[in-house]
């Protein structure tokens, strides 16, 4: 229970819900501007082709057409291509290859859906109709989409700049130590694992509305972004749209992101640039089919892993080689995902004496791949936890016993892994035991027998995951190649009558910041929850901030708010001391009440705020007003961890996998709003189950066509595909931030695929790749 109403630890219902449940949300496509025109992209129907000619004559003459732009038009304006903001070096020290990434094609197209031309018209329909009249003379070229084939001699070349389609060939860890460990191993487990390609699918499609003001020379871009300031920085400093002070970026209500709305895409860039060219606001809203072709995809790894054990089942060493699909171009943070967000977590929750990982990133004729919920960490957990379970079976041990034997001890923190992370806190045996209790692990054999009596195959599988969140200490990521710092900003601004407006650089697109952050203020400053307003998502209103991804909003953004609140308290103490004629040192503060020690004199923060804005009786040396800014740069990553256990029942006659039970035991450190945290776990697990059972982006191997381009072909988890979830939490507070929080947004998506595939393997007695569709499962069950 929290000490104050609606404070830290209370499951407060959300402020933002009122507008969403009444249809009063303000999503991008809900916004219209006077004189607005509509944009539509003509996209490549080919995976790879040379553009020999584009004839716009007929299209230009079509009704309602205002203008049409192609790559050369943007190049003539020196509006640059898109960038990747994280530099990775190959083993030989050479920088990663980042071929040009034009917003509109310059002579060639590299994946189905690549932008060829931008039509601006009076209506969406007219823009679409006109686009059909554009005559593009393509020369189709050979393509490659499968990451396992991209590096093979003779594979189609995606970019001249990247021989062998290699973006980089990177390594981490100690190869010699690992070789030595394997030489002494009693047992070695080996696996080849595919981490299937996913389409993120926030329910709100991406959209942009660009407007140029001739009077002020200012651009305003409304965009479906998780990080509007970063978008502004990139569009200004690298893409050359306008100087930062002349570009306002607004991310209004955003209908989900899951990573896919972090990146700066061709569409908003083209839209804002073209708004000046045509002198009118332009709106572009993606169709779902465009989203499938162009929203950055996630995962798509092919991995070979080997783990060495001694005779007692202790891990001796871990060797991993991964091929990571980058798609046709390097998206904004693509290079970091299969390296520093992946291989650095291959240590899992275990004492691993040594690790060696190699990652080869390859270009293919597919949609760019970048961060999607979990970003690299689900891939790492999938490798580690599939290996642990397989190794346990190989060695005839219970998988949870093998984990227990190898866990880092709860008193071993800080714990340095062989892959550059320093875990700060945790209690892995505790979360594993909790999950086992939640799902009645010991009763499984009886349940399995009961299922068998009905002709069903029952399986149970665990995943003990760890992630690095709260990204991230700026100096640390800078040394690893990041082009930006990863701090966060906040302003806590009292109004004269005592209400508070909080400005945050974080961005909420479903996470409930307006509620959680208000709880922080209610708790720290004693301001009634309803009197706190949280403002985010507008570069003109809020201080420069880095945005929301990597489960960082509370650990980093929330910490910035707490720092600003601390400054408020400091100043308020001085004001209180003056008003109560005491020394500031004698002022005690708790939840917004300032009292003089040892007396019954006290003032509330509201009274002090009023005095600060109406400073008739006020300390001489103090500035009036009560508003404080803070920037918070984290000291370390945070390390949420836990165990999820899945139980499934398979009908061998149909191949349908029913998820019959799910136990999630997570350690997120301190929790501000348990209701919201549980919701995040539910959503993450659902996406993880989606990956394991249903989802997968498929390209035709020959033509490079996208075969899963709509909800008819790409199977999204629906209500009747999922179980109810058992969710419980443990708490080892995070020592590196003032709130002791670790982050919860990605955990479910990280843990779930491995847990579920382990359960399916247990049921079938054999391994299959994700997604475990009925067809695959049925085939496996038949040949069992």
């Amino acid at each position, binding site marked *: 229970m929290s000490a104050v109403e609606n404070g830290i630890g209370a499951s407060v219902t959300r402020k933002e819900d009122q507008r969403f449940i009444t249809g009063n949300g303000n999503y991008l496509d809900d916004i219209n501007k006077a004189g607005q025109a509509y944009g539509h992209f003509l996209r490549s129907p080919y995976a790879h082709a040379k553009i020999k000619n584009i004839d716009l004559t007929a299209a230009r003459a079509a009704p309602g057409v205002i203008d049409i732009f192609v790559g050369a038009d943007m190049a003539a304006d020196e509006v640059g291509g898109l960038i990747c903001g994280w530099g990775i070096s190959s083993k030989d020290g050479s920088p990663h290859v980042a071929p040009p990434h034009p917003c509109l094609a310059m002579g060639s197209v590299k994946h189905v859906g690549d932008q060829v031309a931008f039509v601006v018209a009076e209506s969406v329909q007219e823009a679409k109709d006109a686009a059909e009249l554009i005559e593009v003379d393509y020369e189709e070229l050979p393509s490659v989409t499968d990451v396992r084939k991209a590096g093979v001699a003779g594979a189609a070349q995606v970019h001249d700049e990247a021989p062998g389609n290699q973006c980089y060939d990177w390594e981490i860890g100690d190869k010699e130590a690992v070789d030595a460990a394997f030489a002494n191993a009693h047992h070695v487990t080996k696996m080849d694992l595919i981490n299937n390609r996913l389409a993120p699918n926030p329910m709100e499609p991406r959209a942009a509305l660009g407007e140029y003001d001739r009077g002020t020379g200012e651009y305003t871009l409304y965009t479906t972004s998780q990080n509007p300031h970063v978008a502004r920085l990139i569009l200004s400093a690298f893409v050359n749209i306008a100087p930062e002070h002349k570009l306002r970026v607004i991310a209004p209500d955003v209908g989900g992101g899951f990573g896919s709305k972090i990146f700066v895409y061709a569409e908003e860039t083209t839209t804002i640039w073209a708004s000046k060219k045509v002198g009118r606001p332009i709106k572009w809203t993606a169709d779902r089919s465009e989203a499938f072709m162009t929203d950055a995809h996630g995962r798509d790894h092919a991995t070979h892993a080997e783990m060495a054990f001694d005779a007692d089942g202790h891990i001796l060493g871990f060797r991993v080689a991964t091929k990571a699909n980058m798609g046709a171009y390097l998206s904004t943070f693509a290079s970091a995902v299969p390296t520093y967000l992946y291989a650095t977590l291959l240590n899992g929750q275990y004492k691993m004496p040594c690790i060696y990982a190699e990652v080869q990133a390859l270009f293919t004729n597919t949609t760019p791949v970048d961060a999607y919920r979990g970003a690299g960490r689900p891939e790492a957990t999938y490798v580690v936890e599939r290996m642990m379970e397989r190794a346990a079976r190989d060695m005839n041990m219970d998988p949870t016993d093998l984990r227990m034997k190898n866990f880092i001890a709860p008193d071993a923190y800080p714990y340095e892994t062989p892959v550059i992370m320093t875990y700060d806190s945790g209690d892995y045996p505790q979360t594993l035991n909790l999950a086992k209790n939640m799902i009645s692990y010991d009763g499984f054999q009886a349940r399995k027998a009961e299922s068998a009596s009905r002709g069903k195959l029952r399986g149970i599988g665990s995943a003990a995951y760890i992630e690095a969140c709260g990204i991230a200490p700026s100096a640390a990521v800078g040394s690893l190649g990041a082009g930006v710092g990863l701090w966060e900003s906040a302003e806590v601004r009292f109004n004269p009558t005592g209400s508070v407006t909080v400005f945050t650089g974080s961005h909420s697109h479903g996470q409930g910041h307006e509620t959680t952050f208000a709880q922080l203020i209610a708790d720290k400053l004693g301001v009634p929850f309803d009197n706190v307003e949280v403002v985010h998502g507008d570069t003109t209103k809020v201080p420069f901030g880095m945005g929301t991804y990597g489960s960082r909003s509370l650990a980093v953004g929330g910490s910035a708010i707490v720092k600003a609140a601390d400054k408020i308290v400091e100043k308020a103490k001085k004001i209180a001391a003056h008003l109560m004629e005491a020394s500031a040192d004698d002022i005690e503060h708790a939840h917004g009440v300032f009292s003089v020690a040892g007396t019954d004199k006290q003032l509330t923060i509201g009274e002090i705020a009023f005095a600060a804005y109406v400073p008739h009786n006020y300390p001489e040396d103090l500035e009036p007003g009560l508003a404080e800014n803070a920037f918070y740069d984290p000291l370390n990553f945070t390390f949420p961890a836990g165990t999820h256990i899945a139980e499934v029942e398979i009908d061998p006659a149909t191949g349908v996998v029913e998820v019959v039970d799910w136990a999630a035991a997570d350690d997120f450190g301190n929790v501000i709003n348990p209701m919201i945290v549980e919701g995040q776990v*539910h959503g993450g697990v659902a996406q993880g189950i989606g990956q394991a059972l249903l989802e997968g982006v498929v390209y035709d191997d020959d033509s490079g066509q996208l075969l899963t381009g709509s909800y008819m072909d790409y199977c999204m988890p629906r209500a009747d595909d999922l179980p109810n979830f058992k969710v419980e939490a443990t708490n080892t507070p995070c020592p590196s931030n003032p709130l002791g929080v670790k982050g919860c947004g990605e955990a479910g998506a990280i843990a779930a695929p491995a847990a579920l595939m382990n359960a399916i393997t247990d049921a079938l007695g054999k391994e299959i790749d994700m997604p475990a569709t009925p067809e695959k499962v049925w085939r496996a069950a038949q040949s069992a």
Partner: protein
Amino acid sequence: MTSVTMTVNGKSVTRDVEPNTLLVQFIRENLRLTGTHVGCDTSQCGACTVHVNGDSVKSCTMLAVQAEGADVTTIEGLANGDELHPMQEAFKENHGLQCGFCTPGMIMSAVDLVKRNPNPSEDTIRHELEGNICRCTGYHNIVKSVKSAAEKMGG
């Protein structure tokens, strides 16, 4: 252009529209009722769900002219003034939404579901909501919301 007249949220509206205008476009663009959303182009997601003559309908599957003379309710018309519909209340109380994008359609479907199944089991709820995709919540709290609303609605 053709003229189309219908009752939306209790008010009679008449507009001139292109004959191929979808009901969802009519609602969003002509009437500027933007609570009804578009999440797909294949009639799969249910974000556009409204009530037409009391039944839930995916408004992207229907032309505006097909709703000539119909009684249409959108999410904006569900509450009784400031008094929320029990389903809206239940979604808030049970954290049945996160980003909120699927929510109007989900609520409209759920109201219809409870109308047809006053006392729905969890299985019924999950099955009936199969036409509405939510990417955020994992449905757990949506199911809880619908159950709780059904109880309050006196099922």
